[in-house]
Structure formats: C-alpha cells, structure tokens
C-alpha cells in the first residue's frame, strides 16, 4: 500500500489553547479512515491544517509525497485534496449544477480569452464541466435538482451537493466533516452506502469526521480518536470500541 497522507507532530495553538497537539495521521491509498472525538476535540482544526486554511504552529503534512503544510488552499486543492465543511458552505446563488461545475474549474485548460471570444475550446470546456458535474450529481442522487439554486435545497441535499462539488475537483483524498449531521436514520444509511461507493467505485480515499458512531464503525476500517487535541487511540473499529480511554472520553464528556 502506498502512503497518501502523513502528518507528523501536527500542532496548532490559538493563543494559550493548544487545539491540536502532536497529531500523527497516516492514511494509505484506498483507506476509509475515521477521525472521531468529543466536541471541541480539534477534528475540524485538523482538516483546516490539512487543506491549508490554517497554518500549523508546528509539525509537517506530507500529501502524495509532497510537503504541503503552509501552502494555501488553492494549491492544496490542485494537489488533489478536497473537503466538505461542517457548517455547509455552498455557493447559494449558483444553481446546483453550477456549484458542482465550480469544482471542475481548477482542471480547466482554457484561458480568459477563450471564453470572451467563445472559441471551440471554450465550448468544449463547458461541456466537459457540465458532463462531469451532472455525472456526480447523478451519483449523489441530485440530478433532478440540477437547475435549482443551491439555496433552495433542503438540508440533507445540501450536504450531498457539497460532496458532489468536492468530488468534481478529482480529489485523491476526500475529507468529509460530519456529512451526516442533521440527517435522519434513513438518510444516514443512504449516505453510508454512498461514502463506501465513493471509495470503491470512484477510487477516492476518504477521511471522515463523524459523530454518529454507528455510521463510523460501520464503514471505516481504521479509526483515530482525538480528545483535547491529543490522539488517545488508533485502530480498527473493534479495537476502538473496547478501548477504555475512548469509553472514558465519551462517557466522561457526557
């Protein structure tokens, strides 16, 4: 197996608070990796450091063999890391299809003049983006809504659209931040199946933050547990479920 993402001693401090403390992650190609922990454990902050949103105070991030910490989000995205957001961040005024097409923008090979002069390359690029976006909407079960403005989507669909948009960037690694939050049991089951298909059919490695234990234990093969920024356990779902420190963290945290 080849290593896709490796962080060493990844640390970030906000003033006096050490939100993430020496986090070591190691994700292989094709993993479906779970990152869990109580509220405020630092999971989202790890994502922010991976994707270049926050600059780590310390430590390194290697992605696909390249050192990426401190790079800006645009460059990280180019390297093939994409994500969704815990507090959904769609482009509300664009249509569902256009939201997904925006993900495909970074691989466009045309320049502004092509579009202003409407060259063949422009039309070819539009077709490419539309096809790709439409396929991904189909994959996520959103094709009927393609023409709607994103702000008109119900909550569960908004989360799916974020995933479709992230997939449109052709990522090697997809980071999902609580994709099932606010969904009911039926929707969660569908989502779990979709996440598995993303990995199996689209061959995209997945890093998943999720509070729903059933979902995480059901689909992840490896799990890492954070508490107060520190890793307290790593292993298979079975190992995690029987780890006394994890049980303590979750029961103690209420």
């Amino acid at each position, binding site marked *: 197996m080849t290593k896709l993402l490796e962080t060493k001693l990844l640390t970030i401090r906000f003033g006096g608070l050490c939100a993430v403390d020496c986090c070591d992650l190691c994700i292989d190609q094709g993993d479906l990796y779970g990152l869990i922990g109580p509220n405020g454990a630092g999971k989202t902050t790890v994502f922010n450091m991976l994707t270049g949103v926050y600059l780590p105070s310390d430590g390194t991030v290697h992605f696909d063999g390249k050192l990426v910490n401190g790079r*800006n989000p645009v460059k990280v995205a180019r390297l093939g890391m994409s994500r969704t957001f815990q507090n959904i*961040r769609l482009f509300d005024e664009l249509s569902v299809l256009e939201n997904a097409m*925006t993900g495909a923008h970074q691989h466009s090979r045309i320049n502004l003049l092509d*579009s202003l002069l409407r060259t063949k390359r422009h039309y070819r690029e539009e077709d490419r*983006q539309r096809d790709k976006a439409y396929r991904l909407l189909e994959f996520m079960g959103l094709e009927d809504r393609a023409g709607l403005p994103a702000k008109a989507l119900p909550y569960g669909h908004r989360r799916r659209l974020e995933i479709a948009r992230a997939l449109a960037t052709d990522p090697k690694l997809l980071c999902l931040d609580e994709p099932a939050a606010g969904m009911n049991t039926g929707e969660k089951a569908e989502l779990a199946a979709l996440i598995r298909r993303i990995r199996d059919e689209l061959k995209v490695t997945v890093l998943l933050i999720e509070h729903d234990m059933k979902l995480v234990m059901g689909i992840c093969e490896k799990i890492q547990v954070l508490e107060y920024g520190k890793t307290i356990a790593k292993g298979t779902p079975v190992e995690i479920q029987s780890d006394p420190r994890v049980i303590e963290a979750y029961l103690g945290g209420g």
Partner: protein
Amino acid sequence: MPRTLALLLAGVVACYGLNWFLSEFIEVVYVDYVNLIGLAIILAVGLNVVNGLTGQFSIGHAGFMAVGAFVGAMASILFTYGEIAAGPLAFAGLGSFLFCLLLSGLAAGALGVLVGAPALRLRGDYLAIATLGFGEITRILLTAQDSLGGPTGLKRIPKMPLLPGTETWDGGTSVFWIYLFVFLVVGLAVRLQRSTFGRAMIAIRENELAAETMGVPSARLKVVAFVFGAFFAGIAGALYAHYQHSVRPDDFTSVRSIEVIVMLVLGGLGSVTGAIAGAVVVTLLPQLLRPLEEAMGIDGLSMVVYALLLIVMMVFRPQGIFGQRELSLKLLRGLIPGRRGGKTP
C-alpha cells in the same frame, strides 16, 4: 469565433444606425443624455464585474476613469496637434483615436493590477475605503501635474473621428463610438459571467473560503476582475474626454465613484441588465425631475427629490430593481398578473 466576428459586425452596424437615427431625428439635448447614459453603462457594467461578480467592494472607479481620460486625451492631443496649444478643434484620426483608447484602457488596466493586488489583503468595508483612498490620491496627483494642466486640466481635446458617410451629421459620431464600447463591454461582461471564470467569480463572492478549497484561484480572479473594470473605466474616461473636449481632475471625485455604485445597487448588484437599468435611471432621473423643479420655481429641487427617491427605493426594495436576476422575457412574463409562468402543479 466566426459568430463573434458576425456579432461584432452587427454591433458596428447597429451603432452606426443608432447614431444616424439620433442625429437625423432627435434634438441635440436628448442626444446628449443618450451619450451620458452610454458612458454610465460602460462604467457600471465594468464595475459590476468587480463588485457584483467577485463581491469585492471598490469605490475607486473614478480613479481609473481619470487615468484613462488624461492618458487618452494627452495622447490624442499630441497625435492630432503635435503640441498643447490654443486653436480650433480638429478631428482625431481613426487610427490614432483607436490607439489612444487602447492606451487609456491599458493604462487604467495596469493601474487595476496595482490596486487590485494589494487590495487582496482587505475585505469588505476596509477594501471599500482603501479603493476610495486610491481614487482620491489619483485625482490629487493629477491635480498636481503641471504638464497635464494642473487643476484646470486639458482642453482642446480632438473630436471623435468621422466615418464614411457621417460628414453631414450634426453632433458628430460620439454616439457611434460610445455605444460601440457599450456593446463591447456588455457583450464581454455577459460572456465572462456565463463562463467557468464567471462562475468561479460568483463562487468567490458567495463563499471565498469554499471557492479556494475547491481550487478556485481567488487572488488571480479578483485581480482579473479589477483589470476588466479598470480597462473599460479607462476607455470610458477617454471617450468622456473626447466627448467634452476638456477634462479636469475634479471631474473624477469620489462623488462619481459613488454614483456608479448607486447605479449598481439600484439596478441590483450582480446583474448586467440591472447595471444598465441603474445607469439609465441615475443619469436620467435628475433630468426628468427638471420640469418639476422649474414648475415649482425652486432651484436644486430635482436633486433633493432624486436623493429622496434613492432613500425610499433602498428602504422599500433593498435588493435593487432586478435583484441578482437578469431581466429576461421570462421575468417580464412573470410580472404580468394572472400569467405567472413556469410552474405546473
């Protein structure tokens, strides 16, 4: 591409026709309004790319216009007369005129890079204030340039070049030239908006962080937007200078920048048709209120009413005339009562 050329040709013909029609049948005062509206549209549609698409907030548009006006006017004077000197007005040559316009656009566009790049560090109101400051600095520096005439500016700027068959038109070819660039800026703005770059710009406006995480190069696109707006503002400035035959730095105070913003917001920020509607309304409204002012015998009343209307409009319809939608036939049909289009149960 062939379509683009055909469109361009159609645009040229249409502008020629418009100019002929106006000079043949319409009084000169009204033709003046038409020209002023055209200039306003160029400014507003250009700025809409910055403020409406990428969601930055620039109130320095007059600065770009000023640079374009002075560069274009100076170049044109030198080409036509060879020196700054008193004398009767002459026509600019076709080639040199186009070259001067291009030069103004490029100068203003280069300034757009200069302003747009540091502006990347700023957000929202801070960006707005910084661009305002830039516009004022530009104007003040122009005032201090004795070679450009100082506070009194440049005079005897040549007339816009004649075209075949236009020699007898009173009022000249200004309508043709101004509306040619209206046509260009509108066409290019619409094409930009409906392309992957336009969508990426809107994505930046809607949620910059998400756009960046999706690989949208927001810094570059924001500068591109600035350059687009600045380029056409520069051209509008040069056209304005040739149209008035004189320019002063004080033609380009922050009041003018704010006027363009008002056009955008009135029409509905982010919509090209909105920007056009805003340009028409803001240019015409004070003129339309003139008769009221004369009837009441109160000097300055039209501007008071104009300001009042602006406030009332904002309080009751803060999203502007069109919101972010484009004016289209479908939208018009939706406005007709009893025929709410589209939705079948």
